[in-house]
């Protein structure tokens, strides 16, 4: 009885702390929104970033951060924020519209997402995880049912085979998506007219110029340099301080 009372009290305390924290975030968020509405876009971006650096993440926070950067003329930072928000709410129509709008303003070398990347970006990694593992759980449930009720074996044979096939498909897809999530990194150029060089040295000759907002795939890293490509015809090295890298 004492233990139960202790657990309830502890839960209430934790919930209270979380609520206080959420209220704190909401107040800061409202203050940042006010700066945005007043046209102080850079100040608003700084205010949104202050919330984000605490580790707090919400699609609305990152969306508004992207808007503030967009209005402040920082296209790369805006696209980076929209892309981060897209990882949390990939099907938000407002977010997709703004990301498209920002991308349309970026010229020059930039990544053109393949259909595979577009499909992968349609769901969050957690949603892909559920989608990939639910068939596996269903398949195990069928196998367990066959053990508990052998009379059902014949009836469940077809659906068990189908569930097994879907499980393999789901796990494979999840593996590909997770592999892409962990291994493929995108660098978003945040500086104007960033010079991309043939080698990771300031003395290396210029390969091409990437515009603010260009999205490039990271191939390699060396010291303060990243090797990037647009997957079309441009490949080169640029400094890490001129990009934001998305995981």
């Amino acid at each position: 009885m004492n233990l139960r009372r202790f657990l309830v009290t502890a839960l209430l305390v934790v919930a209270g702390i979380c609520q206080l924290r959420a209220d704190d975030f909401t107040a800061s968020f409202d203050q940042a929104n006010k700066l945005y509405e007043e046209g102080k876009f850079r100040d608003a971006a700084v205010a949104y970033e202050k919330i984000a650096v605490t580790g707090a993440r919400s699609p609305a926070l990152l969306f508004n951060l992207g808007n503030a950067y967009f209005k402040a003329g920082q296209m790369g930072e805006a696209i980076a924020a929209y892309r981060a928000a897209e990882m949390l709410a990939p099907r938000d129509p407002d977010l997709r519209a703004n990301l498209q709008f920002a991308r349309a303003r970026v010229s020059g070398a930039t990544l053109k997402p393949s259909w595979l990347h577009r499909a992968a970006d349609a769901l969050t990694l957690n949603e892909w995880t559920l989608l990939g593992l639910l068939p596996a759980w269903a398949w195990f449930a069928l196998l367990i049912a066959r053990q508990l009720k052998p009379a059902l074996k014949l009836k469940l044979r077809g659906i068990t085979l189908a569930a097994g096939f879907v499980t393999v498909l789901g796990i494979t897809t999840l593996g590909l998506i997770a592999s892409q999530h962990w291994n493929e990194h995108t660098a978003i150029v945040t500086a104007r007219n960033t010079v991309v060089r043939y080698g990771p040295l300031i003395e290396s000759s210029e390969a091409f110029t990437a515009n603010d907002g260009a999205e490039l795939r990271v191939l390699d890293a060396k010291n303060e340099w990243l090797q990037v490509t647009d997957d079309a015809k441009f490949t080169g090295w640029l400094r890490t301080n001129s990009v934001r890298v998305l995981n």
Partner: protein
Amino acid sequence: MSGLRRTITGFTPGRIQHWIRLAVVVAALVALTARATTFSAALDRDTIVLGDTATLTLKFDDGQPQGTPQLPQIPGLQISYSGPSSSFSFVNGKTSSSVTHTYVVKPTQVGDFVFPALTLSIGNETLKTEAIKFKVVRAATPTPGSETEQQQLALLRSVLPKKEFYVGETFVLELDLLIRNGVQGLGGTDLPGLQSQLQIDGCTAGRAVEGTRRQTTIGATAFTVIPLRIPVTILKPGSLKVGPLDGAVVVELPGRSQRDVFDPFGMFNRGVQQRVAVSAPEVTLTALALPETSKPLSFSGAVGQFKMAVSAGPTNVAVGDPVTIRVQVHGRGSLDAFTLPEQATWKEFKTYPPTVKTETTGDLGLEGTKSFEQVVVPQNAEIKELPAFEFSFFNPETKQYETLRQEPMPIIVRPAGATPSPTLALAGSKPEENKPAQDIVHIKPRLGTVTVNAAPWVQQKWFLAAQSLPALALLGAFLWRRRADTLANNPRLRRQKQVEQVVADGLDELQKLASEGQGDEFFATVFRLMQEQIGERLDLPASAITEAVVDDKLRARGLGDSAIDVLHELFQMCNQARYAPEQSAQRLEAIIPKLKMALKELQEVKS
């Protein structure tokens, strides 16, 4: 005494001469170190042709500074350090040394320059050079077609397709480097540096591309033309000046004119290298503003010559379903300069910002296709067609606006389902929604659900551990199935398990009956448990078990005497209880351990 003599006799004439020579050398070295240090600066010429370079030397005699002397920044000059050189000489007993630091001076503009006096401290001395005056002049541009021009080793010309352009128009500025035939260019061309000079106010210049080389003739002299093509876009009206442009090219003049018997093929005849400064004069062009009077509503900044293709799909939709309009604009002009024009006739559609894809062809990127994909959403079922689509551009050739038009396309719009779309519910509150979006969607007022740096599930241990549950459950079900099958196929084992359960339940019941003092039920249960356990061991029906079986069969199976005695005792207690029921709880509870012991020993009897 003899030792002293040896010492005195050691000062022989040869020894004395040796010491004198040594003293002279030491005196010379002392004199050398004591010599005054001098410092001078010199430029190898008084006049530098723009595009060419000169050499500046700083010479230190009999001394040198610590480190490389740092030179001041002079606007209009690029100065780079080449390296040091040193020399040491000993002439007629006089020793001298000198260190020379060499710099390459490259002017970037014409004019009179003064290289200021330099002051340096070496040891305790402060040294100062004289200021150097020099001129930077532009390479003489000979009159086109003149004899002077024909005699030039290399020439630079800027070529414009015409003199009048419109704002937004893109043209190709060609810089032609002409190298006289018989003279070989060595790749030391500084033409790319010319592009940095193309800072034309009111224009943007693209990346320069070297074109195909060709031959041309000036008078009777043949030249090879190396064209450098630069796309230029006019940004504002007015008079715009291009140039003057200055560069340099390294050429190789023919060497020996006659064949060498040892080099009949001229393989080792390398000739003489020479750096030639070239210059192209200033060119003025006129940029005209686009006419405002006849500007169509669907003009969105396109200047050039274009064609348009429009398609839409799907064309059978419900209200609220998206329809994608694909517009491809193909042609010549600055593709980056225009957007998809607003369509005034698309009021019955909600429109979203279009996606844009630009594909250029050719090295200069002046031609290509700009593709727009715009999603529109029909707002009511009355719509029968996608309205006409118009795109206008200004054609600099005809000097007038031209409009491309896609006629209306039929479309079927079905009523939406029972649930009206939120857009329809809000329709009317924002009439500007019917226009193509020209700005981002506004910020969100609510923070929503906040997560704090939560890693994806697949990276969390609890989630990975949870994935083992179905496998463990399957393993459990499998083992359970195996046990059930084993029992089903082995009646004796099944009975053994059943009896174990009956005995366990019966012992619990005995405890309860004993505490309640129910003697009849207690002994009936004791009797039943003994029958069940003995029957299971002997594979006989429980009802067939009597006290007589104990001696007849159990002893033969190896049951111990003590257990047999206890069994007899228990059987007799049960029989007696039928006639004289025992009511004492203590007596009844005392029987239970005996029964447990007897049953345990029975379970160890071979079946």
